[in-house]
């Protein structure tokens, strides 16, 4: 800046609205431009009409169908058991969504939950206060996640390889910690709390905590600068770097996120079943990833949303639960989940093709009225004049 006292001193906080209104509008020639969409869809409309909404509608449709077709489905008992079953997947799916959006993966989540569970058992047996036990177990998850994050973000190793490794490593550690034993004598008050319901609704009390976690990751992904950066990283790390997004740092913290939430899931698992074992939650990582992908997150990174993933998790959970109510065997259950997953991966490309076709038609209709690009002038680069 050449003169002191310039009107655009960088240090003064300028809100975007102020900034735009204070710009010299005389130089702007809007007559020759195509009408850009005056206002994008706002909050609610974006969610209700967006691509992720499909999952929400599918979920609602299925719940409606199940309520009518399956006699015992529409009851508080069903809601209670369904949600209790779904909570670990729902929890881990939240940070996993963010990880997959950046184009990475974390396969070690279930092992972290198992390790946490094993640790809880051993620490509780050693006579520590339950609060201390919970704190240490949670911290173990943070450390496990940070270790993944270090190898992936700092050392630059591929996340698939690293987390396959830690999947085995953490599960092995769990076995080392607790062996073949199971610890079951947790405080009855606490275990009862973990299966308790809010009044007569059938909704488990711990859902409140789950909602808090979901809100946290939803806000982080959709409403913060950090979240904007994650989408950019998912599509192009290089382009993200060029706009000042700290790619490694973001990835590191995401793995700390999956680690700590996996620990929460491990704690929940242990107290819900009142059983600390080394093989708790084993195989859960695939269920989580399946649900996340079903919820509209692209395995290649860059697309997806928290509401979509919540719908995806609940849809899988509901389908599984209703099939079980109908006494359909687990084999069918797995097959249904698999088919859904494949359908969810195919669906976006169909959707995209449709969108491209629509875009093509719209372009075709509007383009003839556009003046050639060379004919327009660019006299207004819109940078504030310095007095």
């Amino acid at each position, binding site marked *: *800046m*050449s*003169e002191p006292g310039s009107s*655009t001193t*960088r240090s003064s906080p300028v*809100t*975007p*609205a102020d*900034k*735009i209104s204070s*710009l010299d509008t005389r130089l*702007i*020639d*809007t007559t*020759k*431009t*195509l009408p*850009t*969409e005056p*206002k*994008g869809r*706002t909050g609610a409309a974006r969610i209700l009409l967006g691509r992720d909404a499909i999952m929400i509608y599918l979920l609602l449709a299925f719940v409606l169908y199940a309520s009518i077709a399956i006699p015992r489905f529409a009851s508080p008992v069903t809601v209670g058991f369904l949600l209790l079953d779904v909570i670990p997947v729902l929890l881990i799916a939240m940070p996993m969504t963010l990880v997959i959006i950046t184009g990475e993966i974390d396969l070690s989540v279930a092992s972290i939950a198992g390790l946490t569970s094993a640790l809880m058992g051993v620490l509780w047996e050693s006579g520590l206060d339950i609060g201390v036990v919970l704190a240490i177990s949670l911290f173990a998850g943070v450390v496990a996640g940070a270790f993944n994050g270090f190898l992936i973000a700092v050392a630059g190793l591929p996340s698939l390889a690293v987390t396959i490794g830690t999947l085995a490593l953490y599960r092995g550690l769990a076995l080392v910690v607790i062996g073949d034993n199971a610890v079951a004598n947790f405080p009855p008050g606490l275990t009862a709390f973990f299966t308790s319901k809010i009044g007569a609704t059938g909704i488990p009390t711990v859902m409140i905590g789950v909602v808090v976690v979901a809100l946290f990751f939803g806000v982080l992904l959709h*409403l*913060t*600068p950090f*979240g*904007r*950066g994650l*989408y*950019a990283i998912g*599509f*192009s790390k290089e*382009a993200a*770097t*060029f*706009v*000042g*997004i700290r790619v490694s740092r973001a990835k590191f913290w995401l793995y700390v996120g999956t680690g700590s939430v996996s620990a929460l899931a491990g704690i929940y698992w242990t107290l819900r079943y009142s059983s600390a074992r080394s093989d708790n939650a084993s195989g859960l990582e695939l269920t989580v990833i399946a649900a996340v992908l079903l919820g509209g997150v692209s395995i290649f990174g*860059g*697309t997806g949303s928290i509401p979509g993933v919540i719908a995806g998790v609940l849809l899988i959970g509901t389908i599984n639960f209703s099939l079980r109510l109908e006494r359909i065997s687990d084999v069918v259950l797995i097959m249904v989940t698999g088919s859904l997953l494949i359908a969810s991966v195919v669906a976006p490309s169909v959707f995209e093709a449709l969108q491209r076709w629509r*875009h093509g038609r*719209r*372009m075709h209709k*509007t383009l003839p009225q*556009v003046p*050639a*690009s*060379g*004919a*327009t*002038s*660019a*006299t*207004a*680069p*819109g*940078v*504030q*004049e*310095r007095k």
Partner: protein
Amino acid sequence: MEALDAMQTESLHAGDGPPRPRLALSGAVKAFGPVVALADGNIDILPGEIHALVGENGAGKSTLVKILAGLYRLDAGEFHVGGQSVSFRSVADSKAAGISVIYQEPTLFPDLTVAENIFIGRQPKGRLGLISRAAMRQAARDLFDQLGVRIDPNRVAEGLSIADQQIIEIAKAISQGATVLVMDEPTAALSGVEVERLFQVARNLRAQSAGILFISHRFDEVFALCDRITVMRDGRYIATHVTSTVTVDAIVHEMVGRDVGALFPKVVAPVGDTVLSVKGLGRAGVFADVTFDVRAGEVVALAGLVGAGRTEVARAVFGIDPYDRGTVEFAGTRLRPHSPKAAIDAGMGFVPEDRRKQGLVMNLSVGRNTALTLRDRVARFGIINGRAERAAAVEWSRRLQVKTTSQEYAVSTLSGGNQQKVVLAKWLATDPKFLIVDEPTRGIDVGTKSEVHRLISDLANRGIAILMISSELPEVLGMADRVIVMHEGRITAELSRAEATPESIMHAATASLERAQ
């Protein structure tokens, strides 16, 4: 090797009358859609000559080489090899006709031995149809003797220097019966001794009456090695000279000699304080001792040939890459190295060279791309104000006249020119004090090009300091207040607007320093 014997016999008969060219291309045209890469390509290579091909970036040399190599097919023009009209459909056709291209960085199989690399796919067979390693080794040794070099045929290719790899490629080409060798900037990555050895190999081949096409930006090499020089400019053949009858100055003039008319609406803006001050910046093996200033209101062009280290310097200044020595001062304070965020926060913007990979997140919407640089500014208490974000995107799209039917469409659906406007929009939206523009008009149509030029000029006029990297001389001459020329990672000249001429820039870019003064 039979091929070389044939060459030698042929050259014995060539004494009477002018020698027949081994390869002749005339009136060659190659276009990609509306872009004409080669408008009039002419070249003839005689047996036993080393023929240089020179020209600026974008003069059409690479296109011509690719036609010779069989990678591109001619749209129009005549192509004769050994007196016969040819039309190559593939690289194999070109090889069969005796043409071999040696690239700057050969790709050998690292785990195979030198001899195996030379004879891959056509190993000499012994009894029982098995590969005879002994015969292969001996053949490789013979080839190296013929070229006058010593490389152990038994060692694996991994870890060989680029110079050795090139020579192995040459040996391979000779063993396949090549009579014309095309060397595309072979010396760019070689040290002095290695260059001399390559020249010796080339001279040996010339003595064995092979024809060599030598492409280089280095005039000292061209004049030391080549018998004739062909100059190209803007996809056209300009002239062919016998080396002994021409000077470097004449060649440079032919390479750049065109009107730099009033195409560029350059307004010389009042120059303010120093915004960016780079001192002694260096990164091992990439650039060294780079010192320059950019002041408010000034357009400083960083000129030089592709690979001179210009983009690398810009990346280091902006914090994308680290640097080993030196400092970058921005508005009087030292900038934290290797942190684009620090650079952006200080008021820098970077319109990168590769729009598709670096400038934009192609799958993200126009609006999100535009607002990506603003993500911190449209947030309050860490939460983004969606309305402000969209308003800013719409506003800046309008200012730069980005043509799109919706802000929600992926930016990949826009034309190249419009994409570049989105890149500019997202940086202008940050209200920068300093903007780096790397090849700002590459690959965009003529109309948008002049819009971009006007824009840059206008920005400077409003007090923004601009560092422009450009390989297009007219753009450099038309836009810049000052021209810094780089050659092989070092600044070789700093020219004022008055001093900057095509010749002075070209001399500095090819490091014939004494002539630039």
